[in-house]
């Protein structure tokens, strides 16, 4: 791995699902991006834009329909075998959105956190106990909590358990799938700061998926915007947030309410119309053509490709 090589490189990654009647749902369609080591890349977009599917294909939880993913210069298999999982699971992990359904209610917290290192023979029984206690402390819980069950914990505490479970294997890359959406505001800040501290102390690289734009801007170095399975904009998080270029990004950010009544009163509400359509039968049109306020004829005939515009990448005919 050379100095400039990204930790993760996704090259035209697609994940399609076959539906009855021969239709194809293009959940992720030719997404290419790099994630540098120790970077936090934020990914935003409405539900159904393919953020989670993309995150899962990156770490092999879903097979790729097409395209390649490179991890530190090594090409990952299109479809993981159990052997591949044994090899890669210790290097890439995932933190899930729902801290209620992602923890097995019949396992103790200690068993949940210890499962990874136990399965991968990372530690002996005795070491495991200390390791779990250590991780419980690191995520702000108490070592005594190991013998309790998930239902005894609040949402924020459960999310800490999920973080400990993912990080105990000391992965290099972690996909955080909406890790704070289910939490209260005050607890969101606790979890985000915890992730930030752990990222710094462990040298982690994160893909941070969320739909809270302000939080993604706060957390991320760079921000990517997805719409109907395609990446429509990618750049420095502040640039994308404060000077969005793609019409979809513009609308997303204009819909994001700010905790500031004076600014809210002044704000021009350009409400986005319609809802995200199904990712089937898109043909060659720009996926956003149907809802775009700046749509042109070319948008319905030809899909724009991601190209470099000033300091970022944008997929829109307006910038050609």
């Amino acid at each position, binding site marked *: 791995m050379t100095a400039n090589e990204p930790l993760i490189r996704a090259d035209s990654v697609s994940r399609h699902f076959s539906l009855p009647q021969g239709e194809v749902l293009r959940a992720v369609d030719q997404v290419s991006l790099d994630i540098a080591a120790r970077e936090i890349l934020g990914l935003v977009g*409405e539900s159904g834009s393919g953020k989670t599917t993309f995150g899962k294909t990156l770490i092999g939880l879903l097979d790729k329909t097409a395209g390649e993913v490179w991890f530190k210069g090594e090409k990952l298999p299109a479809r993981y075998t159990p052997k591949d999982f044994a090899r890669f699971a210790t290097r890439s992990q995932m933190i899930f959105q729902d801290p209620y359904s992602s923890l097995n209610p019949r396992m103790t917290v200690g068993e949940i956190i210890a499962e990874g290192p136990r399965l991968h023979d990372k530690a002996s029984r005795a070491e495991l106990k200390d390791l779990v206690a250590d991780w419980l402390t690191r995520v702000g819980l108490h070592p005594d909590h190991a013998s309790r069950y998930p239902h005894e914990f609040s949402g924020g505490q459960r999310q800490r358990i999920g973080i400990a479970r993912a990080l105990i294997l000391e992965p290099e890359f972690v996909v955080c799938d909406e890790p704070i959406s289910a939490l209260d505001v005050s*607890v969101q800040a606790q979890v985000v700061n915890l992730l930030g501290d752990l990222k710094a102390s462990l040298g982690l690289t994160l893909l941070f998926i969320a739909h809270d734009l302000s939080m993604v801007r*706060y957390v991320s170095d760079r921000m990517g915007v997805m719409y109907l399975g395609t990446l429509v904009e990618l750049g420095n998080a502040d640039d994308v947030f404060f000077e969005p270029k793609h019409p979809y990004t513009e609308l*997303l950010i204009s819909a994001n*309410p700010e905790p500031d009544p004076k600014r*809210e009163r002044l704000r021009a509400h350009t409400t*986005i119309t319609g809802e995200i359509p199904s990712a089937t039968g898109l043909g060659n049109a720009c996926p956003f053509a149907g809802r775009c306020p700046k749509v042109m004829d070319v948008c319905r005939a030809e899909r724009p490709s991601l190209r470099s515009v000033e300091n970022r990448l944008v997929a829109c005919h307006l910038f050609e």
Partner: protein
Amino acid sequence: MTRPLLEVEDLAVEFDTHGGTVKAVRGVSFALHEGQTLAVVGESGCGKSVCVQSLVGLVPMPPGRITSGSARLDGEQILGRETVGGMRVRGQLIGMIFQDPMTSLNPTMRIGDQIAEPLHMHQGMRRRDARMRAIELLELSQVGEAEKRSRQYPFEFSGGMLQRVMIACALACEPRILIADEPTTALDVTIQAQILSLMRDLQRERKMSLILITHDLGVVAQMADEVVVMYAGKVVETGSADDIFYASGHPYTQGLKSAMPQNQDRRAQQLEPIAGSPPDLFDPPTGCGYFERCPRAMQVCEAHQPPDFDLGKVQHRCACWLHDARATHDS
């Protein structure tokens, strides 16, 4: 100021559970003025939903129990009553929409029939007319192809569309007050913006008053005239949106704000979480409920409940000992 449309005073609600009695709402007072939007803010479990549900008789009793308080709509007591002056409190006087529209609608009934039912049952409208009115209400809530949609079932709608249906249902009997309990929490920001703007428009057209329960301060900033901040079953601060956002007097309100990212400029800001978690309401603290988490707690706070202090401006009140003349201001 004119007399408020709705005046809630010293409302307290308890629940009997296997683990004991939960004191969910512990003496809440607030006022809602005609045509205004009142936002009720606070973390999960602070009693905001129970508080408004008790107004419209949605707190199951038992196990729930209203132990004290009054709620007057135009001077008439509504608490614990199903009808007032021949009008049903829930539906005709106060309409309500919830966070999860999917579980609030009957999955086996056509949308149009669900909206028409109360019109037929409670307002004595003929079935045919009620169905026509349902279509009008769907149009009002900006559901496209209203006639066709009225014959469909809830599963055929997206979350945002269902929330529009809920609004149509709630508006069917033209209530004076609409209570919206986390109406956009489950929705994408884009759809949230659509629903909020729909609620604003309908409110303006109908001079309806709105009680908006939310934990999203962005939504509060966009919608609210007045704000009630709740913590551990009590109101800790009330005031206009500007008072709450720019001159808040309670450490909890201030804590909520600094736990959220602000997007003033590109400067990096450090989020400051509120440490710890809310107190156990089986055995609520004798003093201030926020004492254990409060960065500015004083000795008096542990044992003595702070009274409401007037913060100089009209209707800006705050329950915190820091505003007592005897408090030392060393920070």
